[in-house]
């Protein structure tokens, strides 16, 4: 059976060589290249509709690095199997080893490539936890899968994240999205940017405009006023001291 391959690398010579190598091993592992991309965002754009089964993904690409690309692709219903490719990044290699992620070192050798593809043909895509642990830094975007498309929301556009029953609601000034991620892990990954104001809610520190005292109910409580959004969010009594610190820092 022919394996459908997508090649993501910012350097044209590198993509050319990868195709040459795929040609060399065609008798052993028959493949068809269904797409190519030269930066991270273009990869995210093109992979979902390409029908690729395996993504050969360079980890150092302009715009968005390979590891973040992989993390967003996992939002797809049927993500491709990913084989990372790197020339010299020692830290990335350690992280791949540690988290059992498949990778190839440049210059890629034909026999290694064949072995990796055979393994990938039978294997599953990496899971989010593996990728999150391997990533050295927080993501620049959060992603939402919409049918056969990945919508990216820049982290800096997010005003708040609120856990509902099964999902997390992501709110920007313009829109609302549903995320399939846990609020706890989001809080950990983006601790610098967001503050927890309630058991179920993270707010962008930069978006907090002020506080309003609310007197309905039997007890007085505080509401967060936000930049560019009418909605006020309640601060839980438990989080109030932490949130108040933040205000004091600001003023």
């Amino acid at each position, binding site marked *: 059976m022919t394996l459908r391959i997508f090649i993501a690398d910012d350097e044209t010579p590198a993509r050319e060589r990868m195709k040459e190598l795929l040609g060399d091993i065609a008798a052993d592992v028959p493949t068809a290249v269904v797409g190519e991309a030269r930066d991270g965002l273009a990869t995210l754009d093109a992979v979902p509709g390409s029908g690729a089964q395996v993504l050969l993904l360079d980890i150092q690409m*302009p715009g968005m*690095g390979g590891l973040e690309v992989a993390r967003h692709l996992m939002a797809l219903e049927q993500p491709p199997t990913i084989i990372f490719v790197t020339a010299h990044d020692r830290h990335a290699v350690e992280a791949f080893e540690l988290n059992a992620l498949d990778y190839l070192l440049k210059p890629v050798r034909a026999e290694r490539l064949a072995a990796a593809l055979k393994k990938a043909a039978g294997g599953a895509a990496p899971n989010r936890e593996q990728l999150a642990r391997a990533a050295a830094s927080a993501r*620049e975007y959060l992603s939402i899968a919409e049918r056969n498309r990945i919508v990216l929301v820049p982290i800096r556009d997010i005003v708040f994240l609120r856990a509902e029953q099964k999902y997390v609601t992501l709110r920007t000034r313009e829109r609302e999205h549903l995320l399939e991620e846990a609020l706890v892990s989001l809080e950990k990954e983006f601790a610098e940017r967001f503050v927890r104001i309630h058991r179920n809610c993270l707010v962008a520190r930069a978006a907090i405009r002020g506080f309003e005292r609310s007197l309905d109910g039997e007890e007085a409580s505080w509401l967060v006023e936000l930049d560019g959004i009418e909605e006020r969010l309640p601060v839980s009594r438990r989080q109030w001291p932490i949130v108040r610190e933040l205000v004091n820092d600001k003023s």
Partner: protein
Amino acid sequence: MNVNDSMTSIRQDVSADFLPDFRNLGVLARVLIGVNALVLGAALLVSSDLTQATERFLRSATLAEPLLVAAVIALFALSVPLARLPYWAGCAAVIALVVALAGLVHAGLLWLLGEPPSDLRRTLVLSGLAAACLLAYFRLLARAYSPALAEARLQALQARIRPHFLFNSLNAVLSLIRKDPRRAERTLEDLSDLFRTLMSDARQFVRLADEIALLERYAAIEQLRLGERLRITWELDGAPSDALLPPLVLQPLLENAVYHGVEPGTGAGDVLVHIERRGDRVLARIENPRVEEPNHRAGNRMALANIRERLALFFDAEARIETSTPADRYRVEIEMPYRVARRSPREAA
């Protein structure tokens, strides 16, 4: 042009003692400060309080300052012939020169003021002693940055190229071998020239023309990889090809420009290489676009510190390196003295 041949333009024998370079700003500053410190120290030693010391210092200064200025000018003028003498003969000549000048200044002051500013013999002996003290100080200084030590530092400083560059270049060559074997050959030649320079003797000056050739070889390799994303503008019309500079001062800056300004960007990146001579200075400017790097890649400051230190080892206080960020660009500027080889390698050997 062969980079290796012309690298031997001057070769200093670093294992022997040398008279200081009396045309070097750092040396001149040390002489001025050193002599005044000696005079002040002497005044303090023989005085009972500060007022008296100040008075004595000022009195000594009427003799010491004109002598100092005369000596500095004479040494500046004679630095070339003095440097040709063997070390100890050079020292003797410097001391003799200073003592002779002291005699002249003494005579001049006697004629001007109508009375001797101080005892002549005392003046002669003291000025000779001061000159000897300063020569000894410069020798110690040279020993502290001892040739072996300076050499080790230079070699260690030079051998830093990013491993990623080697791998990237090898990958680029591998991808060319089948489609364009001739270009692959040329790239390997460029690569060997680069590494020959990297492994060459870090103590020698190179001609600017050779450093520029190296820049072009480096650029050719990166161009192969990055294609139309890398656009370099070369402004080299005013570049003095015979100027001497430490090896690999400009190449790491161009490498930085590509690494930080072009590679992380999705579009094309414009890099500027501008070199010119302005009077007795050589100016080099390298610019690249500023690209926001979310996971900022380190190493930039290290390369700059490295070059700054090497410039200091070669030029002391006379070279400077500065960075600025005009608009959306990142700019590094180097200014160094315009030096050319004074002697052929044969004579120097």
